[in-house]
């Protein structure tokens, strides 16, 4: 009894540490991959940690037009995504928090984060930020169905609405559900790139305000709120990444092996994103919906396959 409790406690501790400390590594890995492909040295892998440390010591500048809503964006995003990180299993060990229907809660935590970011962007009254907010919500409308159809497929296959069971269910991976699983992962990969504002949907490195989607909404943030924005974005990379690599695990990976495999797959995922960004250009803004609809179609077919 005590032994199971201790094992569980270690897992929860590892889960929390991973969720809190690991995220800033991922953007660093993506940047390093891109730099190496381009033949550059690039910034250090730990650059975001340094940036966060630097920003946390800086004062924020607030525009006179903004109100408390402006701060609700960064704070709310980190709070919502951090809560979501408790619901998603890292590898095959169950998440610290799990209950029937937590998948829906998980999805709407991201909805809440987006809502607050959009409000905080609109609060500045800037034409740029309003434009970015409009783009963000239009594209979210198309990304969300793919997420939910993926959940539906997994729920149908596992008979559960809890992420910990849906994603880490034994026997799921190498059964007749293989084809639907591949489709779900393909659809979610698109959602992953869109939600994390990566190429080909958005370009997190551009300095051109008129082409930005997510970045332009946080242009006015500085100092600690900016640190929260950057941290929140990296946390999103990790939490949604866990969603994407969860179904790849089987119970074969137990204990510490599970954690090593999880971290390894996260690193691979970051390198993969870096490679995609290295070899493709961004889509034209009015082509983005087609790309997102491909995600909806993939997950919808996964669901249909499981119905038959």
């Amino acid at each position: 009894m005590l032994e199971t409790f201790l094992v569980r406690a270690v897992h929860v501790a590892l889960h929390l540490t991973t969720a809190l400390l690991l995220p800033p590594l991922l953007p660093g890995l993506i940047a390093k991959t891109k730099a190496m492909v381009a033949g550059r040295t690039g910034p250090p892998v730990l650059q975001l940690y340094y940036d966060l440390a630097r920003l946390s010591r800086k004062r924020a500048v607030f525009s006179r037009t903004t109100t408390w809503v402006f701060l609700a964006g960064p704070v709310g995003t980190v709070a919502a995504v951090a809560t979501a990180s408790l619901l998603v299993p890292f590898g095959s060990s169950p998440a610290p928090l799990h209950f029937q229907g937590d998948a829906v809660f998980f999805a709407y935590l991201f909805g809440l984060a987006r809502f607050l970011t959009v409000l905080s962007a609109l609060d500045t009254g800037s034409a740029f930020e309003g434009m970015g907010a409009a783009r963000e919500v239009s594209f979210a409308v198309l990304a969300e169905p793919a997420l939910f159809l993926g959940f539906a497929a997994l729920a149908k296959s596992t008979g559960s609405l809890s992420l910990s069971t849906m994603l880490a269910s034994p026997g799921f991976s190498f059964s007749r559900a293989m084809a639907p699983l591949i489709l779900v992962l393909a659809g979610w990969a698109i959602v992953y790139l869109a939600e994390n504002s990566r190429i080909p949907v958005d370009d997190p490195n551009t300095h051109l305000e008129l082409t930005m989607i997510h970045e332009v909404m946080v242009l006015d943030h500085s100092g600690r709120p900016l640190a929260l924005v950057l941290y929140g974005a990296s946390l999103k990379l990790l939490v949604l990444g866990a969603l994407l690599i969860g179904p790849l695990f089987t119970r074969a990976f137990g204990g510490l092996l599970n954690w090593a495999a999880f971290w390894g797959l996260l690193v691979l995922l970051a390198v993969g994103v870096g490679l995609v960004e290295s070899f493709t250009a961004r889509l034209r803004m009015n082509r983005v919906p087609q790309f997102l609809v491909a995600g909806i179609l993939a997950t919808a077919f996964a669901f249909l396959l499981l119905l038959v």
Partner: protein
Amino acid sequence: MSVPFVSTRNGLPVSLADLPFIPTPEFREGILDRVREGFRLAALFADDGPSLWAVLADDDTGTLQVGRTHLSQPSFAALTPKCPQAHLFEREIAEQFGIIPTGHPWLKPVRFHRPWNEGPDAWGRAGEPRPGVMDFYTVSGEEVHEVAVGPVHAGVIEPGHFRFQCHGEHVFHLEIALGYQHRGIERAFLAGPHPLSLKQAETLAGDTSIGHAWAYCMALEGLVGRSLSPRVDRVRGVALELERMANHVGDLGALAGDVGFLPTASYCGRIRGDWLNLSAEVCGSRLGRDWLRPGGLRHELDPGLAERMLPRVEKAWADTQDAVELLWGAASVMNRFEAAGKVDPAQAKDAGLVGVALRACGHPRDVRKDHPFGPYTAHPVAPAIAESGNVHARAWVRWNELKESHRHLAEALEALGRSPAEAAPEPLPPLALERFVVALTEGWRGEILHAAVTDGEGRFARYKVVDPSFHNWFGLALALRGEQISDFPLCNKSFNLSYCGHDL
């Protein structure tokens, strides 16, 4: 055609005595007739006379027709309604001398400065005008919104203000307000040439040092009747083509960067440096400052150096090909380039676009071919053209120009490696009195025009500079009509115009 416009050639001076004042109505009709026949209005400017000067280029025969008229009052009937390419020239005339082009449909300030003659301001502005303070074109209606960008931009670039009238992502109209970089260089040339004039010419547009310095030198050499040896011409050709290589490579890389295509963007950034370093090898400046001087060269290109440069040129060219060819092979890039920034070929011609932007619309106009100067008579280059007028066409024209420039460079360096260096040129004698000369060069952006008028003491009574950007900023506004606002940065980069070249 009976009107006495005087025919001349690139760099060939005309005596003012041979250049009669044409009565203003005939002057106006003369311009309109010629433009209708296919001439281009290369320059239209005023002086303190007050009189108007016009330079019309006949690109098919390689001749220039010049004419002037004396104005009895500070106004004239605007040419713009019938000849759109005059629109910015007429606004400039109004701003510089308070001469009103009556009937001008879009009479707004250009550079936001006081009139030169301290006379009444064309817009009745009191005090020192502030850039960007004017009435912008607006579209009203529900859901229509305005986006203002600049003058301070994200990134280390020059200042300019852009106003978009949008409906969601759709752009109805873009209006561009410049003038933040106005330094008054044209005025600084007056009573010159001054010791600093060459330096100022080199910095008219900092990335086109050779193009502008050559035009300045050509004007002076024309005014003293100095002709250059073929070797000096070839070295100048090397300088101009190296400038073109560096800038076109940089532009193609920047275009790739704007669509987030990293391979070409990263490599071109470095390769551009290789081309710039080749310029530095000869004159000590990556931007080609101090390479030319009136009458010849300040830095001769020794045969030994030419031989050493040739393999470096080949190496840089091989790298350039590798980097740029990645671009044409990426479907995601082609998709972006082909969908954005189309300029209608007829409009491009009417609006008087020049250089890369015009050639991308299928018009094979290149000063090196049409009004050959320096080495381009003996060693012609073929103008690169593309048909579609969009971002892809402008990128494609640059690519084909790179190929042609590389060929020219390699041939020139090989020839220079075989011919002995020449002694430094004699300083130029005083300028001929009361002459008018037009010097055209093809900078990497397009046609550069310098026109000089000397007075009874051989000093500049008027010095006019037309940078290609002066013509082409309006082309960018045209390219944005009906486009997505998110494609603006890409369109902007495909023109890559100079702010200071426009603002002078």
